[in-house]
């Protein structure tokens, strides 16, 4: 959300509470020129009323005192506020409930202090000070709405607009532009500049970020974002004076998996979304607050839709998961939601072609076939994007049919689902910031879970935490020690023969992250037991700190394991006669026997469809309400943003209908009923937005007597941009793949 929008909302909200105060609020944000010309009179007029209304911090900002003795008191417009030492004047004002206009300041980036929009008056200082860069000192008297401060802002605004093209009618940022909002609130009503404006050559930053560099106001937020958060030092500020421009100097695309975030942080329309360019104005969009399912992080997003179409995806603030960033895959894969959709139930005819049929016919065919096969020849596979409800229904249905061969893609042939701490990220994503040594085992978080990687990078930058990495050589965008590629190294660390083992044992909060790619290995149990040995040596699991983590790959994985979707044996597909693929596209279809009957239920005509005999069209995550558990065990739900396409239905409803046709009716027919059923299996799935800490630790696990193999760890995600059926259908993701992944 634009800062101005936030500001106006806060103003509105406080206005609603005290309607009587509205005029004074108006006076605060709209500068009338008479007041400026007549400073004395204005001052006399602005005498503080004796009983000032109480103010609340901007945007609900909370103050956290790391050390109570270090609290200092400053006065903002006469209000005393207590703040911790080391805060800036701008932060003090925020806590006092005064929103200071700003462009270059961003709470998650370093301070640049180059836009000067945040000027305020400080008593006894000879000139206005840039509040974002000025540390608050005890007893400071800060004045934010004096004629001097107002005039300073108006002046800065005039300079900023001097070279700004004022092309708001054709600018995609229009309506959510900080410059627009703040010039309305703090700027003058006319400009005095009559010379020619400068123009700047647009840069090509790749298929995702569109640049209109003439609009840039040189706040350097994008440069700082790229350098500090994304870890790609490509952008820079070139030239000087009025010739200054943002660019890469040499022709270079922005090769970061987080590049889309510069669109959000750019306060003007200089960096906008290329796929969204000229598609819609943001005020026509309906925002739906939901979550992302392209990886196991469950980033909080807002789907902006117009009518039945998803127009764009933007991040939502969630300090514990994605802060305010999302990966490029999350942000731009949405065009895949419109392409290659399955919208009718279909049956493959004898000629090998699909024929659209009615739901009734399709269900009848499947129900008939399922009764003709032996129960242990029935197999069900849930896909990467499945929600907990549908997996519950699938498991219940197949159980009723007498089979227990249900599993979820990516969990491997025999997942350790018994102990919850064995498959989730126990430290939690925000907890990673407390770790001081990381050991990454067979995982490349940069492509597997970009937001987790950003968190590790943040920690490494802030505290110089050490990172050891076991797996194929890769670029993690922070300094790391590449220990080796295979499990032998783990053995050495476990036995204390490797220098890194002393680093681990000396660490205060060591953190081990095992990639979910390990689940698919034959020596999985052995690897986990070596990791446990390491954890035991280095005291990774303590009552006050649990640093033993598994980083999952897919949105469905954690919920599937919570619900107990575990196959009876690993070799089931080869001997099966009836396979139910619920959005599963990555099962090895070559192993499916010739005479097996395959039902594919899903939303995209992806790999699974090639082998399917019957297709059930289902709704995508943007069209249904579903429960997902992310890699740290946090339960979140999606919210339908757009209607489903064609004849598609929610996954669990399809299975419920099929169960009825097959004569084994499932005992629920509403979301709440299926959720109460889930409660009996995994009660944690109903605690939305909560992380249930895993209570049992590894010590309860049976010993493994397997030997670790020598096969080196592989790259699990080869292609960051295309990992599931939706992203594979997306044109933008295909472009990213060809342009940004140097293969």
């Amino acid at each position: 959300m634009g800062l101005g929008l936030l500001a106006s909302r806060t103003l509105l909200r406080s206005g609603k509470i005290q309607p009587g105060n509205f005029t004074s609020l108006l006076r605060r944000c709209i500068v009338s020129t008479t007041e400026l010309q007549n400073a004395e009179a204005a001052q006399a007029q602005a005498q503080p009323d004796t009983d000032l209304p109480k103010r609340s911090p901007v945007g609900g900002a909370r103050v956290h005192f790391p050390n109570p003795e270090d609290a200092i008191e400053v006065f903002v417009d006469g209000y005393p506020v207590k703040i911790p030492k080391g805060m800036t004047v701008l932060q003090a004002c925020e806590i006092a409930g005064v929103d200071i206009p700003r462009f270059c300041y961003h709470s998650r980036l370093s301070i640049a202090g180059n836009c000067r929009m945040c000027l305020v008056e400080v008593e006894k200082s000879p000139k206005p000070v840039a509040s974002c860069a000025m540390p608050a000192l005890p007893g400071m008297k800060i004045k934010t709405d004096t004629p001097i401060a107002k005039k300073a802002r108006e002046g800065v605004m005039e300079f900023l607009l001097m070279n700004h093209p004022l092309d708001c009618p054709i600018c995609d940022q229009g309506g959510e532009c900080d410059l627009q909002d703040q010039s309305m609130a703090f700027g003058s009503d006319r400009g005095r500049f009559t010379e020619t404006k400068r123009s700047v050559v647009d840069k090509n930053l790749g298929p995702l970020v569109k640049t209109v560099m003439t609009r840039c106001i040189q706040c350097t937020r994008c440069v700082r974002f790229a350098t500090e958060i994304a870890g790609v030092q490509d952008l820079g500020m070139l030239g000087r004076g009025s010739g200054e421009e943002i660019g890469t100097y040499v022709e270079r695309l922005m090769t970061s998996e987080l590049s889309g975030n510069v669109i959000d942080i750019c306060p003007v329309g200089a960096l906008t979304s290329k796929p969204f360019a000229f598609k819609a104005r943001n005020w026509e969009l309906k925002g739906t607050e939901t979550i992302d399912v392209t990886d196991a992080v469950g980033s909080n997003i807002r789907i902006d839709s117009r009518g039945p179409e998803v127009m764009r995806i933007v991040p939502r603030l969630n300090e514990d998961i994605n802060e305010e960033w999302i990966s490029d895959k999350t942000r731009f894969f949405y065009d895949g939601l419109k392409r290659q959709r399955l919208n009718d139930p279909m049956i493959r005819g004898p000629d090998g072609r699909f024929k659209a049929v009615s739901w009734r016919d399709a269900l009848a065919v499947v129900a008939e076939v399922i009764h003709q096969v032996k129960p242990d020849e029935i197999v069900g596979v849930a896909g990467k994007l499945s929600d907990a409800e549908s997996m519950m229904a699938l498991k219940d249905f197949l159980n009723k049919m007498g089979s227990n061969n249900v599993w979820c893609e990516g969990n491997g042939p025999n997942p350790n689902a018994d102990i919850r701490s064995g498959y989730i990220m126990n430290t939690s994503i925000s907890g990673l910031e407390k770790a001081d040594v990381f050991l990454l085992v067979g995982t490349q978080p940069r492509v597997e879970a970009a937001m987790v990687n950003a968190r590790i990078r943040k920690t490494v930058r802030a505290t110089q935490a050490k990172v050891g990495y076991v797996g194929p050589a890769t670029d993690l965008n922070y300094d790391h020690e590449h220990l080796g590629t295979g499990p032998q190294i783990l053995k050495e660390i476990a036995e204390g023969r490797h220098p890194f083992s002393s680093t681990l044992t000396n660490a205060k909060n060591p953190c081990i992250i095992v990639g979910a790619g390990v689940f698919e290995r034959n020596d999985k149990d052995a690897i986990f037991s070596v990791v446990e040995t390491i954890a035991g040596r280095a005291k990774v699991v303590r009552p006050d700190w649990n640093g033993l983590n598994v980083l999952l790959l897919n949105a469905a994985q954690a919920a599937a394991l919570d619900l107990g979707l575990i196959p009876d044996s690993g070799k089931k597909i080869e001997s099966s006669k009836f396979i139910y693929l619920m959005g599963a596209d990555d099962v090895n279809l070559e192993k499916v026997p010739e005479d097996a009957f395959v039902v594919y239920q899903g939303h995209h005509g992806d790999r699974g469809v090639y082998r399917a005999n019957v297709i059930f069209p289902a709704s995508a995550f943007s069209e249904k309400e579903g429960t997902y558990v992310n890699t740290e065990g946090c339960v979140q739900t999606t919210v339908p943003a757009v209607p489903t396409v064609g004849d598609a239905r929610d996954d669990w409803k399809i299975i419920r209908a099929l169960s009825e046709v097959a004569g084994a009716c499932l005992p629920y027919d509403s979301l709440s009923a299926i959720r109460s059923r889930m409660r009996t299996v995994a009660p944690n799935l109903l605690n939305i937005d909560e992380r249930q800490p895993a209570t049992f630790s590894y010590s309860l696990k049976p010993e493994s007597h397997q030997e670790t193999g020598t096969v080196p760890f592989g790259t699990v995600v080869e292609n960051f941009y295309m990992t599931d059926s939706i992203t594979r259908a997306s044109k933008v993701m295909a472009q990213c793949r060809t342009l940004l992944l140097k293969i």
Partner: protein
Amino acid sequence: MLGRLAAQRFREIRQVFRQIPLVSRSFSTALNYHLDTPDNNPDLPWEFTEANKVKVKEVLSHYPSNYKQSAVIPLLDLAQQQHGGWLTVSSMNEVARIIEVAPIRVYEVATFYSMFNRTKVGKYHLLVCGTTPCMLRGSRDIEDALLKHLGVKRNEVTKDGLFSVGEMECMGCCVNAPMITVADYSNGSEGYTYNYYEDVTPKRVVEIVEALRRGEKPPRGTQNPKRINSGPEGGNTTLLGEPKPPPCRDLDAC
């Protein structure tokens, strides 16, 4: 009728626009982005010479080892001297490698300072001061004379690669305005000089250029034979005797 009125209105409007002087704002002389050319692209190898490698070490020794990036300006300067007065992308990349920063951080510095040339210059790069004092004393004529004599435009190199003319802001010898600077890259970084020629006239600059062409080294400093350094023409006119004490108060008394 209506047509005539419209035409007249149109003429009036055009008149108004004519009166507004069309100011062209001139920005920094070179582009702020790089375009690949055969003699300037990232694939060309570039290295400091052996002699300069010693100098690089020396420069780096001035800074603590964790602040290597502080050496960016001296190293760029050295690279520029070695490369005949201008910086190629590969030379900037090499500097970035030495000081262990991302190349863009070096590009930022090189584009910021106008004394780093990112396009080819002549062996003798002539810089005419264009700031107010020199301008009042006729620097425009000096520049015109140079450009006319060499037959080039500003920042263009003569065909023989010997000369190029650029503009600089005040170089701090306004007292001898107008002035030009000659950056001499003809002998690599060892023989590099950067000399001021002050009190020049359009005639004198041409003479200097010709002398340089012949390989001579015209004496630097003021070109007015009647002046010594920045002293007044024809000897001192003030401060001829012992200065009188200030009349306001008796300094010895306090």
